[in-house]
């Protein structure tokens, strides 16, 4: 029944993880016992906790570290402190409400969550969305990638002691969020990208706003170069720290800037294009050493690549409708409700009952600033998803931490954790 492969037979990828023993396979109870008896046994290792409320854990991540002096031997990330059962909640919400739920997962790049969810629903319904909606989605997502990477610049700087960077990063990010507020009404958790298109058209004068953002950013990025990239202390802290090999990254299902830093040119935008990414020109950035500095510089330069895309989108933005004109999915315009009883009923039905989605299952993935963000939806033909699963890139990427932390200094642990850039809302969901 099973085909016998002709190629060289590989049965395990475990051999590709040289630091395999670095994962601390120990429950909290065992760790507590081991920690209390450490000195009695004259064992020189010690198990300590970092987090869950440590300023550099980017949320409520807790790391159990086994230390020998200043050296980290084994470690284990412990999460779940932010778990609110969003996948279970997703089963109770209609497809129309679903986007409000998923947008709260990766709160630093909410539009990508909405995009993955919307693309999955659209694929199940089998609907084609207007061209303008696709390009608006691309514009907003690239701006969101910029704001998310700016947040990384800020927190990465703060974690390593460049506290002024924190202020600069947040300052630039705020400018992008101000544009989001103008378009979607909210700074975060937009519920802007919905199945069928986007919630509203771009406001008049959006080109000027985007262009002024694009003019504002390059000199600021050069300031970052002066402040960090070219600074000897910054390089000392990052270069050669947290090494990740290509084989390790692939075996551990790592995606996003982490995978690219290890030298794998894998970016879903260019390798498996969605939306209209095949119509814009940009480069996939690849690192050569797989250390923290590569991950930093990849993210910094991805801001520049995203700006390149945004400029092309502003030029190519097509005219037309911003959402699909399918009465089953799109609510009537607000003005029609005041004059038409049918429109009112229509509006009421869509928002109370939702729309039915044909039975089936689908997996859709997009490239979020942290890696492959997947959405797996199973529909049973009703107006609510039977199962809604989000493959959070941060969640999977955290598996790499014990391997990168092994045999590093505890001071470098902060730099390594920061370079993974996890968002705990997405890890715990």
């Amino acid at each position, binding site marked *: 029944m099973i085909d016998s492969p002709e190629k060289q037979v590989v049965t395990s990828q475990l051999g590709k993880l040289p630091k395999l023993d670095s994962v601390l396979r120990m429950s909290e109870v065992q760790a507590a016992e081991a920690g209390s008896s450490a000195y009695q046994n004259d064992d020189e290792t010690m198990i300590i906790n970092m987090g869950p409320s440590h300023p550099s854990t980017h949320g409520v991540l807790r790391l159990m570290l086994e230390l020998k002096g200043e050296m980290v031997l084994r470690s284990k990330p412990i999460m779940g402190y932010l778990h609110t059962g969003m996948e279970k909640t997703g089963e109770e919400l209609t497809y129309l409400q679903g986007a409000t739920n998923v947008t709260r997962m990766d709160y630093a790049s909410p539009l990508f969550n909405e995009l993955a969810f919307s693309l999955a629903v659209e694929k199940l319904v089998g609907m084609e969305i207007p061209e303008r909606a696709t390009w608006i989605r691309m514009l907003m997502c690239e701006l969101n990638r910029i704001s998310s990477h700016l947040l990384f610049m800020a927190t990465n700087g703060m974690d390593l002691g460049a506290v002024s960077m924190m202020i600069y990063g947040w300052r630039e990010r705020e400018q992008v969020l101000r544009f989001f507020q103008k378009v979607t009404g909210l700074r975060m958790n937009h519920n802007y990208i919905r199945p069928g298109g986007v919630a509203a058209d771009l406001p008049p004068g959006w080109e000027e706003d985007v262009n002024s953002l694009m003019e504002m950013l390059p000199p600021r990025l050069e300031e970052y170069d002066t402040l960090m990239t070219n600074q000897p202390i910054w390089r000392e802290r990052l270069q050669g720290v947290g090494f990740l090999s290509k084989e390790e990254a692939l075996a551990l299902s790592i995606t996003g800037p982490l995978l690219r830093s290890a030298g794998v040119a894998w970016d879903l935008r260019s390798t498996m294009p969605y939306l209209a990414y095949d119509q814009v020109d940009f480069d996939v950035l690849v690192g050569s050493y797989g250390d923290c500095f590569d991950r930093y510089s990849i993210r910094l330069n991805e801001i520049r690549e995203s700006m390149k895309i945004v400029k092309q989108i502003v030029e190519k933005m097509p005219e037309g409708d911003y959402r699909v004109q399918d009465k089953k999915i799109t609510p009537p315009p607000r003005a029609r409700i005041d004059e038409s009883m049918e429109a009112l009923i229509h509006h009421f039905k869509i928002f109370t009952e939702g729309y039915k989605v044909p*039975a089936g299952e689908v997996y859709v993935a997009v490239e979020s600033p942290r890696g492959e963000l997947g959405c797996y939806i199973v529909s049973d033909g009703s107006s609510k998803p039977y199962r809604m699963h989000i493959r959070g890139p941060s969640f999977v990427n955290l598996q790499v931490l014990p391997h990168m932390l092994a045999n590093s200094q505890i001071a470098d642990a902060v730099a390594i954790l920061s370079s993974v850039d996890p968002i705990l809302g997405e890890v715990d969901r």
Partner: protein
Amino acid sequence: MSDSIPEVEDVEIEIHGSNSEVLFGCPVSYSMGQTVIHPSRSHWLQVATNLLNDGYNMCVDLTAVDYLSNDTRELPEGIVLERFEVVASFVSHERAERLRARVQISGSDPTIDSLYEIYPGTDFLEREVYDMFGITFEGHPDLSRILMPEEWQGHPLRKDFDVGAIPVQFKYPQGEKYD
């Protein structure tokens, strides 16, 4: 009884005959243009090994679905529908291809082999499925709860696990009762 045995064998031949498509020794279906294979639980490790050798170098996602109250599944002939399904997505970087595998797992014996040896990246994902669905992965080095507290009872994403709510204590006037 003796008459029924050849009939069963006939069915076996039909499944793997030329009528139904076979990939990696498993029946194939297509869902919204995406390729889905349906390995049996006993062949799961072997199929995953073959996938790895065929160039599917990453298992990007692994999750499960509880089909307790969903009878709309349309699977290739010969697949016995069970309560749980483990769903894994593989990607081949060389060919830029995706492949999804759906494995049927019975509700009475929710166990399956762990992919940890072949795809170590499924470590957290399998722990999450264990936590949320109570499906045991044999061979996983550290199968423990990952999102819920260690002492939690039950598996929240099962369909017979109610959406959590704290009951509100109402006070009624004496003698009156509302339904």
